[in-house]
């Protein structure tokens, strides 16, 4: 079953990706991530002294502020903040700087589908730019299930609205390491097969969900490579400048 997507992509094709980091002067770390027309700007300030009221002072705390393009901040923005906070808490090493707060601010520049995944990717890059200690990076992708039962990746806003269900998935990025094989796997599976976050909207069958996971994982390796290339390039650029 071939589906005709508006922009001529196949079902597993991602939109053109673009990212850049260190674009803001005052923020400690910043990054901009765009997937097709969806563009998100992320800034990181931290670590700052003290933690918020209900947070554990023996660990670092991460605070997320989501700024929509226009309009008031509502429940949807609060939900995104919470999902982003939990995702980032699981990839950052919180025991390194106890009793500090790191603020991550997300500004939506344009929303054309797959907004939360773009924001997670941008936030990751900004955290790297700021030098916050992390275990590994996270790459995020959106998969959706069409009414016909077909699973497609990285929908645009129009496509998202016509879907039966969609899922935002976050995977740890693939690891290139000097350590021996065994230490990177958990119970016999390589670490990148794990899943950090999964948010679904709409109704889908269990088989469809597992199929989405597979497709998402395959796409996440491509995203990881893109991220790695970009970061390596930027570190060589800055070492030349320094």
């Amino acid at each position, binding site marked *: 079953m071939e589906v005709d997507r508006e922009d*001529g992509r196949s079902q597993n094709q991602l939109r053109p990706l673009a990212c850049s980091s260190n674009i803001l002067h*005052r923020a400690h770390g910043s990054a901009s991530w765009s997937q097709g027309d969806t563009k998100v700007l992320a800034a990181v300030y931290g670590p700052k002294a003290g933690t918020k009221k209900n947070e554990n002072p023996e660990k670092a705390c991460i605070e997320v502020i989501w700024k929509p393009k226009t309009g008031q901040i509502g429940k949807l923005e609060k939900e995104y903040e919470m999902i982003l906070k939990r995702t980032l808490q699981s990839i950052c090493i919180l025991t390194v700087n106890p009793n500090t707060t790191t603020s991550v*601010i997300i500004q939506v520049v344009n929303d054309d589908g797959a907004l939360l995944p773009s924001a997670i990717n941008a936030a990751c890059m900004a955290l790297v730019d700021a030098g916050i200690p992390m275990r590994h990076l996270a790459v995020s992708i959106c998969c959706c299930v069409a009414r016909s039962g077909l699973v497609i990746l990285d929908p645009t806003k129009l496509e998202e609205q016509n879907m039966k269900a969609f899922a935002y998935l976050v995977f740890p990025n693939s690891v290139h390491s000097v350590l021996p094989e065994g230490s990177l796997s958990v119970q016999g599976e390589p670490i990148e097969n794990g899943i950090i976050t999964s948010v679904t909207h709409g109704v889908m069958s269990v088989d469809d969900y597992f199929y989405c996971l597979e497709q998402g994982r395959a796409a996440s390796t491509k995203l990881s490579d893109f991220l790695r290339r970009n970061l390596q390039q930027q570190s060589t650029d800055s070492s030349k400048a320094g």
Partner: protein
Amino acid sequence: MVTYREDGSSEVQLGQTRVMGIVTAQLVQPYRDRPKEGMLSIFTEFSPMADPSFEPGRPGELAVELGRIIDRGLRESRAVDTESLCILAGKFVWAVRIDIHILDNGGNLVDAANIAALAALLTFRRPECSLGGEDGQEVIVHPPEIREPLPLMVHHLPIAITFGFFSNESILLIDPTHNEEAVMNGRMTTTVNANGDICAIQKGGGEGVPQRVIMQCLQLATSKAASITKQIKDAVEAFNTERALRKIKRHPTSTGVDVREKQNQYTCNIPVSLEHFKSKTEVVITRTRKHYPLNMAA
């Protein structure tokens, strides 16, 4: 109430300061005492992204002051024609909303935000609508594919120019950076347009300055306003030609290259970098009482 996704957006970089402006419009009922006028409102968001000292939540006094300065420049000088926003008197008018997001605080947010607002307004297109229904009382809004959306009527461009005063050394600075803002004694923002009209002056507290200095500031501002107006207009022109070219590509020969036309929004990004505006004009003022000549190094 239906909100339309047609928007004009602009991003301005002024030295290290970066500001984004977004314009959207909605059809609403007009105010009782002004049934034939549309509405213009400005929302400023001092994002915590821009400065570690900006708190999220309610806008602080700086944010409110910035919003008011821009608002006064646009509304009271009638830069934007609100009467053209009226569709059906007393029932439906367009309410234009300008959102200003401060992304990076390198100083002089007022000027940058003002330029962002103007650039966004100039590129914004509202959908065309017509009256219909049985008694001509219903408004039909035409989607952008059917009928070309219309630009706003902007009569002139009020440009805000901020000055900083240092009374100890009697120095006047134009366009202060945020390090300079932290140590200056007084500030003044003048909003002038290229025709030489003064749209607004804002001087809130700080050191008192002699009248002569104010006149000097106004003259400097008028000369700067002309060059900035030209830059904004050039950027908007470049964007409009690019958009017209994009529309021509709509015809079926190109397969899936440009997705943008097929959707209901036109996002416009005008990178307006006004690097040379950042050149500071240092005017050294020495008081004539001491019999020293007035030195002006421009």
